[in-house]
Structure formats: C-alpha cells, structure tokens
C-alpha cells in the first residue's frame, strides 16, 4: 500500500469524471424530481417528502418491498450456489469444459426479453413444454404461472437459469487467481481435497465471492425484465417487485415524482443491504 492521495487520484479521476457526469448528475436531477409532483413528465409543485410518505404508506408498495426481498434473497442463494458448483465443476481447462462453460453462458448472453419469453412458454400449462409433458406422459403438473407461490418459483428459476453463468465466471476468475503451486505444495504436505478447499481455496476466494454476491443481489433487486415478461407482476401482485412498480408508476401512470421516490428508497435499501454484506465478510476475515 502506498500513501499518496495525489498519485491515487491520477488513476481515478477519469473514471470519477465519467461517473459524475453520467450517473451522479442525473441522480441529483432524479432526486430533485422526487421532491415535486410530476405529472405527464411535467414538473409541478414542490412537495418535499410528500411523495416518499405517500409511497411508504401505500400497501402495494410495501407488498412490493417484501416481494423484492423474498425474490432477491432466494434468487441470490440458489444462483450463487449453482454458480459456485459450476465454477468448481468446470474449472479445469480442457475442450470439454470450455464447451460446457460456453453452453452455460448462452442463457446469459441471449436478450433477457427472449430468454424470459422462452421460459414463459416453457412454464405454460396451456401452450408450452409443460403442456407437451402433460399430454405425453399423462402428468398433471399444475398451472405454474397462475399460482402465486409457483409464479415466484418460476421467477427465481428464471434468475438461476440466466445468472448462474455470471456467478460461474466471476468465481472461476477467482479460482484462476489462486496459484496452482500453492495447491501443489499443500498436496505434497499431505492435505486432502476437502482440506485444500476449506483452508486454501475458500479463504482466497472470499473477495471474488463478495463481488459475486453483491453484484447478484443488486442485479436481482433492480431487474425489471424478469417480472415484467415472465409474470407481469401477478398473480395478484405476488411477483410485483419494486423495480416493476417504478416502471409502472413512472411510465404507465406517468407519475415520475412517486416513481423516483420509490427508486431512491430502493437505492438506499440496496446500499444498506450491501454494507451489511460487506460488514459480514469483514467480520469473518477477522476470525
């Protein structure tokens, strides 16, 4: 580590300038909008925290907070675990693994719109694969998309299907930063596979794990396409996330003031969640 703000900022200023112009400036404007009554994209009177109070007292928004919490945490857990499994399974470099890594990546690189539309078709009891399965195998799988719990499960499945690839690549990059000589040396010393994993790989992987978890959590909290296309937010608002609410209130109800208030609240909620995650990781490092 070197001390020296001047030198550090030499490296940082282009990035900071870009962020300031294209993210923080619009963010300030967005907050400004949220303090006004905005209708049909026209700025009205100042209402200070009126939009925030209105939003926080609305049962539909509170529902969407719970839905977002449930979705992001569940999706985070399963996506992370799946991604981790894939990273370990496909870590060794070889033609077979390269092929399979690419295969896993395809759901990630295809447009989210099309991915969700294809999955919706898959899950449809009337039109899709489930219908085919029911017909051929005489099953009677229930209607997934019309049941509040199953619809949430379908949404989580969409998340895992697409974003496990992200976790896999991130964690694999982490695995590849671990020097093989370290592993080899441990093996010579008589350590078995499990011990190597627990004592060497896992601790060295912590930074990568942290980035992966944070990125996944933020992605799932903010994602719009999955709920919009797969379930439309239904049935009965069972999959109505805050991101979907923001889109609906801002671009379909044309109330940008309330939409931005929701967005700022979501942003604060996200930042807090990430800080918690960071703190949890730091504590573990100390022990």
């Amino acid at each position, binding site marked *: 580590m070197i001390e020296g703000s001047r030198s550090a900022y030499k490296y940082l200023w282009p990035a900071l300038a870009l962020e300031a112009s294209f993210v923080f400036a619009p963010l300030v404007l967005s907050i400004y909008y949220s303090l006004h009554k905005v209708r*049909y994209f026209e700025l009205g009177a100042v209402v200070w925290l009126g939009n925030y109070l209105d939003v926080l007292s609305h049962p*539909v928004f509170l529902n969407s907070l719970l839905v977002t919490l449930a979705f992001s945490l569940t999706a985070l857990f399963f996506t992370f675990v799946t991604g981790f499994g894939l990273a370990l399974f496909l870590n060794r470099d070889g033609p077979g693994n390269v092929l399979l890594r690419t295969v896993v990546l395809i759901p990630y690189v295809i447009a989210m719109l099309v991915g969700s539309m294809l999955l919706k078709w898959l899950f449809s009891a*009337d*039109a899709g694969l489930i219908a085919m399965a029911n*017909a051929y195998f005489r099953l009677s799988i229930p209607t997934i998309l*019309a049941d509040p719990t199953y619809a949430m499960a379908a949404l989580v499945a969409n998340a895992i299907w697409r974003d496990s690839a992200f976790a896999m690549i991130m964690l694999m990059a982490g695995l590849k930063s671990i020097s093989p000589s370290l592993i080899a040396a441990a093996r010579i010393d008589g350590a078995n596979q499990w011990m190597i994993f627990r004592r060497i790989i896992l601790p060295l992987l912590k930074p990568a794990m942290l980035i992966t978890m944070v990125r996944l959590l933020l992605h799932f909290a903010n994602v719009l396409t999955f709920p919009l296309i797969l379930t*439309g*937010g*239904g049935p009965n608002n069972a999959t109505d996330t805050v991101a979907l609410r923001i889109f609906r209130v801002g671009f379909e*109800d044309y109330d940008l003031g309330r939409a931005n208030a929701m967005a700022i609240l979501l942003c604060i909620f996200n930042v807090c969640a990430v800080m918690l995650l960071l703190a949890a990781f730091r504590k573990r490092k100390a022990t």
Partner: protein
Amino acid sequence: MSIYSRIPSRLVRAPLAALFMAGCTLLPHGASAQELTMWTFLNPTADSPRDVALKQIIEKFEARNPGVKIKVENQVWFTLAEKFVMAHRARSAPDIGWVNGENMGLLINSNVAEDLGPLITSKWTPAMRRDQVLPQANEWLKKDGKQHALPIMALSIVLFYRRDLFREAGVDPARVKTWDDYAAAVAKMQVVRNGQVERWGSGLHLSTDKTTMSFGANALMAAQNGKLFGADCAPLLANANGVKAIEMQADLIRKYKVASPESFAYTLDDVIDQFIAGKVATASSGNGRFGNVVQKAAWGGKELGILPWPSFDRTKPGPQLMSGWFAAISKDSKHKEAAARFVAFMTGPEGMELWTEPGGQVPLFQSVFDKPQFKDARYDYLRDLAKLWAQSEVWLPAECNASRTFVDLNTATQRVVLGKEPPLKALQEAEAATKARQ
C-alpha cells in the same frame, strides 16, 4: 473568370452581393426544400399492407408538393407516445408524431401538440364534416376547444370467433346475445383429452401487463351505458354492475371452466397466439390483427369472424371500445404549415383511399366507402366493421388513464378467483388505485 470578379470596384461588388442575397429570400417558398420528420411505427420500406399504404401516401403527397420531403423515423410502437412528449420537452421533437389511443391522455395532458383546428379542420367544408364515418373520433381528441390530433386509423377491441367451430358445435352466432349464452356456446367448443384441456372455449387475458379491456370491463361498460368514468375521471367500478361483471368473468374460470386458470398470466399477445394455434375457440383483440390471424391460422383464415360483444341485456350488444392511431404536430415544429398539409392529406379522403387499399383499414369518410372500387365483396368486412362501430362505438375520456383502470379490474378479478376477497371489496380497491393515479 466569373462575371462577378470582372466588376472592377469592390465598392460595387458588396452591395450587389447583398442585393443578390436579399433577392433570394424574396423568392417563393417552394424554391427551398423542407424536410419534415415523422415518427411512426410503420416502415415505408417494408411490405405489409399498411407500410405500403404509407409509402404510397408519402409518394403521392411529395409529388403534389415538390418543396416538401417526408422523412420517416420508425419507432417501437409502445414507445411512440412517451418519446414524442419527452422529445418535445427536450426541444428535439419531430414535426409529426403518431400517438395511439391508449396514450392519448399523455398527449393531451402534456399539451405538446399544436392545435389542428385552425391549421386543418377549420378549413373543412360542411360536406366534409357530414362525410365523417366516426365524427366522435375528432371530438374525442378535442379538449377545451383544442384539436390535439386527427385520426389516421381507427380500431376497436373486438371478439374474434371461428365460424368452423361454431358450425361444428351447431351454435348460431347470431343467437349468442348474453354472457350466459356465450359461456354455454363456447363450452361446446371445448376439447378435453386424457384429462388435459386441448382447446379452451374462451380465451381470456387477465395479465396486469400489456393488456386492455377484458370481458368483465366490457360487461361493466355495457351495463353503464358505455361509461367507466364519471366527472373528473372518477372511476365507476364498485357498484352492482361491477360486481356482476367481475363475477361473470371469474365464473368463466371457476364455474363454467371455459377459460384457463392460467389466464392470469396471459397478455393480449398470448391469447391471440393461442387463438391462432387453435388452443382457444374465441379471443378478444384489436381488430387490426384480423389480417395477421388470417395469414397465420392453420385452421383456415376465412373462418375468422367478429362476434358482437355479448352483454347482460339481450337487446343491446356490448360496446366497441374505440381507439386507433392519431397524428399530432409538435408545437415546436418549424414547418407547421407544411406538416399540416401532410397531416390533412394523410387523414383526409385522399389518404383514406390508400389506407383502405392497399392498407386494409376502414376509411373514415363515407365518400371513400362509396367509391366504385370499394363496392367489391372483398371490402364487406370493412363495411360490417363500420356498421358495428356506428351501432356500439364507445370512446372513453381521453384524459383518464383507462388502460391502467383495465389493469386494476384484472387485478380485482384475480383476487376474486383466488378467493382472496369478495367482488365488491376488490372493486373498491380497484377504484382506489385509479383515484390515486389522477
């Protein structure tokens, strides 16, 4: 060596140049070309009937107006209205924008359109006014005396049915007048095999996304004389009519079992796709999709028919909810006069001729309908549609965000079917949601 440089004195050259330039500005306007930008979802270089119609309209107009060129920038259709308004706020709006009926509230309330009254409709003759097939369309776009837009194409939400299935089931479509008749009729067209429903009697779109008027909303409006809103867009949902309508819709799923429980997830697109595939016997849709269905249906497109909406009243069919695409001119346009000329052409009788053939749209002027080339039986379907509209057209107040209220009604139906709430309470919540939006 040019003549100009031969002129000896510099003192003479300068005033001459100035005079020359002044002279240029005095020349008639037609000498300088104007380029109008128009945002639409159609693409004049594509080959669907409406794209071709637009192309021909532009060609005909440009031929007649040599100094004016129309540049079309096609946009994704569901972003057109917002982009037009946002672009206006950023002072970079196109001269002409297309706005669909569902988003008319945005256009009117944001007040970004030029008043087409003085520019176009004030120049109409009384004969032209009488000639309109849908005079209510123009009125609908007027608020406080300002004509915000003019109709290019009109459409309504209709109920598609399959003549072949009705024939097979021995049901006469003319006898399906009430919702009970409807439920009984489509039940006969349901096909169940090995415990699996292969074909549902009724398509139903109850999604909270990309949806529009549902059966229940139609039934409610029918019982209330076509009204969904009172004064100041106060919603009229939580009443006896509403309860009856929502229960009818819920019963299609839970009691008569002619509509799939998965209807909660179905958007308008989903239901039409199923109808094309033969998975449902009836489906509601914008009438504009008629051609699309005929082209793709494996069951023989000529069996496609439009059924007047059932209602709770045997003597009167349900309303045809009107909508369409409308042309607006931006208040900031620098070529308002030329833009007005184009819009007048595109929405006037000459444009309508092309919208009808090759466009396949209902012409909005009776004189066009009466032209000899349109007497052919091919256009009977358009005449029938116009008749249906004349009989039961309903235009919901443009400034009330009706499409969101339809979503609220869908949510209410979902709650009732899932058994979460009694219908009246669900409707009260729908009303509250609509009021919060105003």
